[in-house]
């Protein structure tokens, strides 16, 4: 019965209640979004690479190397020589190597030159290898393998012919029809940057950088050995024996014939998290402050209503309501508004994620699940409701005191 009274009471003050509801809706949505982004971003980043023991590239920052080799973010400052890649493959402790050559794009998606080893040794999430939704790895010079996201957003299918341009823009002056690639395979979605990558062979990267006439000549004369690259961007290295990691890292960092830098993905990832951690905490604090301010709004709305409700309090008292009942009534009202706002913000954030997930993955490389339910969200909800009850204390105590002082003044 008290819940009915609380509900009808709120409905009788529609305007202020709806405004308070909206302010809570906005602040709770911000809080939910921040929490969800935090959890998902970490998850999304951590699953991007697995099973790789060392990333080898030209000396720059550890983070920089990680960002461009794994996340296709930023640009490599320098390349390493192909001879160094061959040297790596000959090391005793090395189980496999994956060459990476970056710098080109296809309609906004990064093009990655690599070898067939990529499809057998590259691992993500919990040691999962890449699998094909359609087709198979590239075998000919102009074969291309697409990540799931690329195929989906550009509506490409197996056998389609595409043009790859030099440079990173969506359009390029160097577009030409001399090097049309054929789609040979499309990968299963992984929820990692692989999804938005266009994979070709190292030789193909060389080919698209040649002048059209040269390329035509090479293709006609079948002189494919000319296309052996002289430099590549980075190498992902897997070892037989993990204990050899540090020895090899030291050896590579001191390698006399080329300037190399080897980083452990785990260490670089931790660095990334320390960097992100600060941003994360700032976001959480801001979200909490926004919620706090709308809780003040809730308390103000309830307190302001108290004066007009003194007769209502008197009526409830004569009917036998105790001062404690009136205290409860106010807390109920606060909780009702908060529960509605929480449910609405939950729905809003979920819907926004469904609508925006494509855009987020393409523009920011964030692969977010639309399901925001998690134990952390439950804890967050519990904390929010505790905060709401605390915010309702001031008006509830006011109601309690008014109830005690009620007079039947006619």
């Amino acid at each position, binding site marked *: 019965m008290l819940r009915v*009274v609380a509900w009808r009471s709120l409905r009788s003050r529609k305007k202020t209640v709806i405004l308070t509801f909206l302010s809570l809706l906005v602040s709770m949505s911000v809080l939910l979004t921040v929490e969800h982004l935090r959890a998902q971003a970490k998850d999304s980043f951590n699953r991007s690479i697995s099973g790789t023991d060392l990333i080898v590239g030209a000396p720059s920052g550890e983070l920089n190397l990680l960002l461009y080799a794994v996340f296709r973010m930023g640009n490599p400052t320098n390349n390493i020589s192909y001879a160094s890649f061959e040297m790596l493959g000959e090391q005793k402790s090395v189980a496999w190597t994956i060459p990476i050559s970056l710098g080109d794009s296809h309609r906004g998606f990064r093009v990655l030159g690599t070898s067939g080893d990529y499809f057998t040794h590259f691992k993500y999430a919990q040691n999962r290898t890449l699998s094909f939704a359609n087709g198979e790895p590239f075998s000919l010079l102009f074969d291309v393998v697409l990540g799931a996201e690329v195929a989906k957003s550009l509506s490409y299918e197996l056998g389609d012919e595409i043009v790859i341009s030099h440079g990173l823009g969506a359009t390029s002056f160097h577009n030409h029809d001399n090097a049309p690639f054929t789609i040979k395979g499309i990968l299963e979605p992984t929820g990692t940057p692989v999804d938005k990558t266009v994979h070709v062979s190292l030789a193909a990267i060389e080919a698209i950088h040649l002048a059209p006439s040269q390329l035509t000549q090479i293709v006609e004369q079948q002189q494919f050995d000319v296309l052996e690259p002289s430099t590549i961007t980075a190498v992902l290295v897997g070892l037989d024996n993990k204990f050899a990691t540090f020895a090899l890292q030291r050896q590579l960092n001191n390698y006399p014939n080329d300037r190399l830098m080897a980083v452990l993905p785990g260490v670089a990832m931790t660095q990334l998290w320390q960097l992100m951690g600060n941003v994360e905490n700032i976001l959480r604090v801001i979200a909490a402050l926004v919620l706090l301010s709308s809780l003040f709004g809730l308390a103000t709305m309830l307190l302001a209503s108290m004066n007009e409700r003194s*007769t*209502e309090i008197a009526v409830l*008292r004569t009917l*036998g*309501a*105790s001062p404690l009942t009136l205290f409860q009534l106010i807390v109920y009202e606060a909780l009702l508004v908060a529960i509605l706002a929480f449910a609405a913000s939950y729905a809003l954030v979920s819907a926004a994620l469904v609508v925006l997930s494509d855009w987020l993955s393409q523009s920011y490389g964030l692969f977010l699940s639309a399901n925001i339910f998690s134990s952390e969200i439950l804890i967050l909800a519990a904390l929010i409701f505790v905060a709401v009850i605390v915010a309702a204390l001031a008006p509830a105590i006011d109601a309690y005191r008014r109830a005690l002082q009620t007079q*039947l003044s*006619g």
Partner: protein
Amino acid sequence: MPEKSQNAVSMSNLVFRYPSSPSVLHCENWSLPKGERVFLYGDSGSGKSTLLSLLSGITQPSSGTICLGNTCLNDLPSAQLDQYRANNIGVVFQQFNLIPYLSVLQNVQLAAHFAQSSEVSASRLTPMLENLKLSSDLLEKQVSQLSVGQKQRVAIMRALINSPELLLIDEPTSALDANARDGFMQMLMSMEETQQTSMIFVSHDQALRGYFDQQVAIDNICHWSKDTQGDAC
């Protein structure tokens, strides 16, 4: 154990002082036999409303005793006092009786809720509605849509729904015109007759005294004085 009291109300040595005012209200020993209806009259400010607040247990006396039947209000802890009021006392005010944002039915149900009685049944409501000349579609209406007269009649229904021992009524007719006032009084009296409830009816309107067996001037029971120390101990 006291003997079973024949009085609906008995009070003795009652003293009440406002927390933040030097005025003190003293009341003589006074009692109302069960089933009787008394007309309590006096000017505004004479302590009528304060006396009603004390009788309903909403405010507590500084000293003295108020007993309703065999129950003495000043002995009850406040939670039980609220419960006792819900079950045994019906109150009708001058203006604010009903919660405006609830429907008529919900207002009546609320009274039953606090008295911890079961659902308000149709068999209980129908004769009351008939007596008060209210149509049953009124039940679903929001209180704020009712006329003043309708509100007062619903207030009587609400006050009587738990079959209280005592009915306290405070200036119920001041917002009504003469015709409506007489109609209201007749309905009140006929409802009262069927319920056999004791009633204290407070008004300054002497024209209403004819409806009652007993008329008492408030000045004969209670009087105000400035605070003199020590008289309440």
